[in-house]
């Protein structure tokens, strides 16, 4: 059997800072995952639909613009509405500590803030998929 963990790496919203998303994408690849990279300016609807078509195990999103309280929960809802109950949804970026409980409440499994080693993200995915 040739199972691979599949991860959708997406940048919801309009911010163009994709250094983090790209570094994470490469680190996940080097950890042996299949990474579907969808690039900038993805709407929550596009992210959820891509997650469905690619049947990913994980949706990993990055936002640096402060739009996370609006966009992250929206993606979670859309993904779940499509029947993907078990997809792990994680987020990262410039996210104040105080916002994290609400994001977790909304279904974001973990939030990775600046300074997180990519190996933490890899470990988290391996432990939770």
């Amino acid at each position, binding site marked *: 059997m040739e199972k691979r963990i599949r991860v959708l790496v997406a940048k919801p*919203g*309009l*911010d*163009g*800072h*994709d*250094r983090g998303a*790209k*570094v994470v*994408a*490469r*680190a996940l*690849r080097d950890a042996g995952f299949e990474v579907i*990279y969808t*690039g*900038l*300016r993805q*709407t929550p609807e596009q992210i959820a639909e891509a997650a469905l078509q690619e049947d990913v195990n994980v949706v990993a999103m990055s936002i640096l*613009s*402060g*739009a996370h*309280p*609006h*966009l992250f929960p929206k993606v979670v809802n859309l993904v779940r509405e499509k029947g993907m109950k078990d997809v792990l949804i994680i987020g990262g970026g*410039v996210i*104040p*500590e*105080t916002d994290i409980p609400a994001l977790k409440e909304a279904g974001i499994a973990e939030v990775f*803030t*600046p*300074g997180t*080693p*990519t*190996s933490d993200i890899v470990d988290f995915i391996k432990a939770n998929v």
Partner: protein
Amino acid sequence: MSNEKIQAGLDKYNASVEKATAKFPERPNLPEQRLYTPLDIEGTDYADEIGFPGMYPYTRGVQPTMYRGRFWTMRMYAGFSTAAESNKRYRYLIESGATGLSCAFDLPTQIGYDSDDPISEGEVGKVGVAIDSLADMEVLFDQIDLGKVSTSMTINAPASVLLAMYIAVAEKQGVPADQLKGTIQNDILKEYAARGTYIFPPRPSMRLITNIFEYCSKNVPKWNTISISGYHIREAGSTASQEIAFTIADGIAYCEAAIKAGLHIDDFAGRLSFFWNAHNNVLEEVAKFRASRRVWAKVMKERFHAEKPKSMMLRVHTQTAGSMLTAQQPNNNIVRVALQTAAAVMGGTQSLHTNSRDEALALPTEESVMIALRTQQIVAYESGLADVIDPLAGSYYVEALTNKIEKEAWEYINKIDEIGGAVAAIEKGYIQKEIQDSAYKWQMDVESGAKTIVGVNKFQIEEEPPKGLLKVDASVGVAQCKRLAEMKSKRDSDAVKAALADLKKACQDENENLMPHILSAVRTYATLGEICGVMREVFGEYEAHVNL
């Protein structure tokens, strides 16, 4: 001392080092060469390569007296929420001694969408101020005399529209366009390569830029029409050499486009400005600033045959490195910013924005912004770094490093020439890939411990979550949409329609300068989204090249 004597001394020294390191090994991950001597800059001709401030090749600075005359412009990048909120922050900064304004726009504005566009949801007023129309711009500069202040606007793809709005506000204040001072970033190539807020494909984008060059050279002559930016390339993860190399390659592409459009190099080159990052490695940064001036001067003189000295001067705005701020122990960032400021000042910047300690967490609070501004003032007035011109010149290390960075920059510029110029190199994904590789290497070095970031991978502590962060309320978006709707109901919609139709026609004629048409549209209170919508229709949109 002759070179032989120095060499003999060096040999003796190296022998002693060998003994010393056998006993006390050096720290790992250091640069290979531990010591620099006159031998390392043996081939550097002082008169040709280093020279004097205000003289070719401008290695030591672009003005003859540098900060002995006047300090750099202390320009604090700010803007968030609504125009009214940002106006308050600008007036606070001016009262605190800031000498220039720097406007941050929110993402919908930067990408040419109105606040009520569905795609703007969640983003309105977040990373900057939301500007939908001239009405917002009027509020943004309320009670600020545009004849006196110099304003820098971080705006790229829709730069022409925001500049037109600024000109229109000035008109209403009674300030003629030829008195306006400031800068628009207007650097689309680095948006494709590193920053991501592009709209149109390269060809029409380059046309818009040359239209602005031409229009401003006649009507807004004191305006810096472009800020060719390495800042974001560095933020995206490039090295120091890559930062200046890719940016100068972009600069070459803009010059070529303008020349192709029929402009003469000396008519616009003096209004080109640059934008560097001030990163953590102080001496490397100083060398980078010096090398960049030398490379640009040579490019202008040898490649474009510029004749006016002003055309050959690389004038630069600098911002301290946002990506080097840590979310951990955020007060440490004050120290980082101070060192970065020292680097920019010893590097000879013309203006500087210093980041605030809390920017890895959120938008800066007023208190944090004050500390960042005070940092510049302390370096200016107390440190002595600004008292003598180019104080690190003649350091064996700094001169050797300046040479090395220059050499590496030329190698990249030549490679990009081979590919067919910066536009082709971006379309092929070459520049993006180089940046990504450097970013990945940096991250892996931090994770392996080869690079130490204090508080991140060493000297960590348990921390309480920081308090008092600035948050932009979601209600800002709602309020802004309401404001927009009210404005739309009051304007003369026939005039708007006519202006947009006229703009569309102008877009379709490649020989037409779009600036007057955009200005007319702006005056009717046509919105940014409407104006960019017309251009999107005619020009299409850029599709990113990703090559991971």
